[in-house]
């Protein structure tokens, strides 16, 4: 039954090329661990899932199943005991604003101009016409003399609402003695004109325009294809199952050499200990009974072997 409402959450089907993955390691909760985040290569660690419904559409190849991804964490990096914090977020495209201006035909429409030739080649295709719609722009401090130069402006961003290739034109203004740069759409240009929101003045103060950037300012352009997530992976030596080895697993005590062996549920040696007594060297009086974990494993205590002796 139609209720007039609609859902706005969908399983993301983003490509690994549009994703960045960082991780941080600390051996314990009371240590800060790494001072900086390390980066993983998304194409190597993020695996998409094939959609089982694809056959209904006659799809022969791979069809992404929205939302479900597998993180293949390399054991060489994630094999230490401790806490790994993994952040999965949209990829950042860092570039500079070439100019801020208005359209020649519509002076009310303000926007930012970017140089496609200066964008990292891996991201150039995103800057094609209408390719940046929905992207977010964040700004770095444009005051180069400031101590916080090129530090990201906090709590400040704009949303790109359109982008088209445009060229600069020198246009007569209302005062015919005056000319200024305006922009018109031309697919032959290597510049792209982006409109952002919010960019309009309020109706209370029509001459007070929202800040949308300034020429030569560094910006970070990010897609909004999915919501960032943080994953905490705790690598542990012991869990319920290893404790169960000690409680319910097979065990053996070699009476000859005092080696105490605990086996896992596959009857493989899990741990070995030396059992011994410490006695007073003069009186021979037993002082301590000790169970000490062995450094080297005595594999002659293999469970199948000792059972068949």
């Amino acid at each position, binding site marked *: 039954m139609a209720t007039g409402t609609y859902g706005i959450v969908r399983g993301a089907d983003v490509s690994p090329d549009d994703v960045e993955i960082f991780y941080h390691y600390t051996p314990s909760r009371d240590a800060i661990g790494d001072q900086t985040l390390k980066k993983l290569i998304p194409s190597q660690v993020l695996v998409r899932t094939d959609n089982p419904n694809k056959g209904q559409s006659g799809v022969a190849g791979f069809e992404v199943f929205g939302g479900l991804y597998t993180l293949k964490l390399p054991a060489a990096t994630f094999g230490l005991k401790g806490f790994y914090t993994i952040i999965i977020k949209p990829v950042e495209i860092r570039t500079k604003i070439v100019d801020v201006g208005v359209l020649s035909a519509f002076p009310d429409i303000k926007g930012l101009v970017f140089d496609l030739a200066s964008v990292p080649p891996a991201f150039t295709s995103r800057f094609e016409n209408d390719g940046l719609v929905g992207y977010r722009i964040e700004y770095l401090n444009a005051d180069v003399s400031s101590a916080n130069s090129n530090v990201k402006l906090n709590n400040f961003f704009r949303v790109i609402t359109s982008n088209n290739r445009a060229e600069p034109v020198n246009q007569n203004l209302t005062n015919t003695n005056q000319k200024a740069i305006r922009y018109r759409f031309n697919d032959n240009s290597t510049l792209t004109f982006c409109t952002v929101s919010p960019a309009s003045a309020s109706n209370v103060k029509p001459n007070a325009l929202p800040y949308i950037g300034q020429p030569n300012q560094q910006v970070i352009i990010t897609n909004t294809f999915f919501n960032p997530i943080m994953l905490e992976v*705790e690598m542990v030596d012991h869990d319920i199952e290893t404790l169960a080895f000690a409680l319910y697993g097979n065990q053996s005590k070699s009476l000859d050499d005092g080696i105490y062996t605990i086996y896992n549920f596959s009857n493989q040696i899990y741990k070995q200990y030396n059992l011994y007594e410490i006695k007073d060297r003069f009186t021979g009086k037993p002082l301590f009974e000790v169970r000490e974990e062995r450094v080297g494993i005595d594999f002659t205590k293999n469970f199948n072997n000792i059972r068949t002796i």
Partner: protein
Amino acid sequence: MELIKRQISLEKSRNRSDIINDLDPNKNNGNWGKLTATTFNVRVFLTQNIDDMGIFTDMEYIKQNVSTSNVDYTILIDKLKSISATDFKFIEGKVPVITNLTSTEQKTLRLTGKSEIDYFSFGELPVTGLTDSKIEDLRTYSNTDPFKVDFAISVELYKNYKDLLIAGVDKITSLLEPRVYVFDAPINNDLGTNKQIHGLRYIEYTGQSRQKIVNGVRIAFPTTIVNYIGQGWNQTNTSLSALTKEDYLFGIVSRPEVESDIFIDRGITKVMDLHLRLSEIGNMGELMNHGNGFYKINKQ
């Protein structure tokens, strides 16, 4: 942003195999206790919250022409030099390198080298549907024989979606059961048959009826099938433009409509109310008190 926690036991990925070295019982293949896994796999679910920006504004643009692809950036370069911003690659004449476009991007991105024809998708598949009878559109002025077979009610020369010239007719081809009639179909052997390509073909079964509800009353009407060949996206319904977004339309998903028949009821005397009261004023004192809503008389 939600925090997802996972715990992975390293024990499950450790080698506990008891292969014994016959020469030295205390040695195995050296891998006991070592990690054997190359990866640890964790499933994550990524979601996207979506919202509609609303309608865009179409604008004209200059299409890419390879022969005249030089754009003059001089005025912009001069401006950037004045603020010492000269490390943009377009100033050196470099062009963007667009590589590794996926097949999806080739089809969905409005790439600068594409033209309208690249977005055409004719389909040209037969389409069939049920509809109302249209035979009344082929009624003649004759009282005795209102529906005539093979009598062209209308003849028109027109260009179709592919710019082909079609001499189309509207006529009834059969009054037997089922009745068959066509609109804008060319005169050839395929007219009125399932091989007809251009125009619309109707097949009406007077012996069968469907029911629909009109003003709460169930009405029976003949079953009519319409056949045509789909035309998809073509030059008659496709255009390319530069899309921009005006802020006041953010979130507005339908085109604003202008209502031209608005009646504003101000009441009979509301606008003239204060002025009409002036007729009741008899002296200066009453005039000073009245004020008419906007003036004030000061005593000197």
